[in-house]
């Protein structure tokens, strides 16, 4: 049941920023982490992640550097910047507020579901 497109629309950047707060990472690892943390129900295409990386790097939310990859290839690592951390904080606060409102609307305040 991968309804990932609808669930994640607008939140891919925030998810990536959150994962990079934990540690620097690279595209393939982030994609796998999202699938794992999404318990297999959510999948993000590599292309979506890559587009998000490029956009966030241009906006100054991420920095990049090269590291050694597998079999002689290079790996591009991403790290979150101070600006990225501030944006994540703001997006997280926004999400918590929306989540509260949606809970009220869908589950219904103190009423049982």
């Amino acid at each position, binding site marked *: 049941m991968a309804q990932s497109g609808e669930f994640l629309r607008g939140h891919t950047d925030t998810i990536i920023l959150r994962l990079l707060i934990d540690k620097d990472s690279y*595209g393939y*690892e982030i994609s796998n982490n999202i699938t794992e943390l999404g318990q297999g129900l959510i999948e993000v*295409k590599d*292309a979506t992640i*890559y587009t998000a990386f490029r956009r966030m790097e241009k906006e100054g939310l991420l920095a990049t550097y090269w590291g050694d990859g597998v*079999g002689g290839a290079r*790996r*591009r690592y991403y790290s979150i910047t101070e600006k990225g951390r501030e944006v994540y904080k703001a997006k997280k606060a926004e999400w918590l507020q929306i989540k509260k409102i949606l809970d009220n609307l869908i589950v219904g305040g103190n009423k049982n579901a």
Partner: protein
Amino acid sequence: MLSRFQSFLKEEFKGLPNTDEVTDFKDELLGNLMDKAEELKAKDLSEDEIFQQCVQSIDGYKETLKELKGKPALVRSAKKAANSLLYALMYFTLVIGAYLAVSFVTEEWRLTWLIIVEGAFLFTVGLLGSLSVKAFAKKKYLHSRALAVPISAILVTGVFLAVSMLMDLWKISWIAYLFLPILIIIVDLIIGAFSRPNKIIVPESIALIMLLSVMSYVVLGILGILSWHPYWLIILGGALISLGILAFYLKKKL
């Protein structure tokens, strides 16, 4: 598998401008493909199946490729080149200004032209040095090390000219060139130490020790500081130290 992916990406990227952004994107895709291939190896698939699954997984990148194809890379390159030219012009204006100022004050016109020459040398060393650092940052260590050779040669030539002209030591200052191979090896060792932090660079270390001992003997002999005999023992000392390092390294390996 690496070469197979490289050939695949070479085809996919045909027609794209040769910019840093495009090269970096290609390298990133290659890294992703190799990571995916590594994961699929555990699933007992054939090499062809692994290859097919990997290239299918990056299908979504074609949109980004279209975007990169359409970008006005020429305009961006021209802007970058214009900025570089402006900085170069500012630098040479300063150098010529310094030359004229010093010349008029000291009236040593036959010597002060050296300011322009040394200024040009410094500019070239700075340019090559920034390319070497850029290559090092991109983990292209061979390019970085190769650039160390002309950088060292220009630095030594600058020292040779300065010592010869300012101290009138033309008969001796050529000795500076004897240190050129030593300088190249030292720079190579430094870059090598950063690129291979866990490996002892034994052949280069031995070459450096032997070169240093021979150069010390020759230079000190030419300058008359030490006599030729018995100070040839310096070279023997260098050889013994090199053998010691080699023996220690081989013992560690075995």
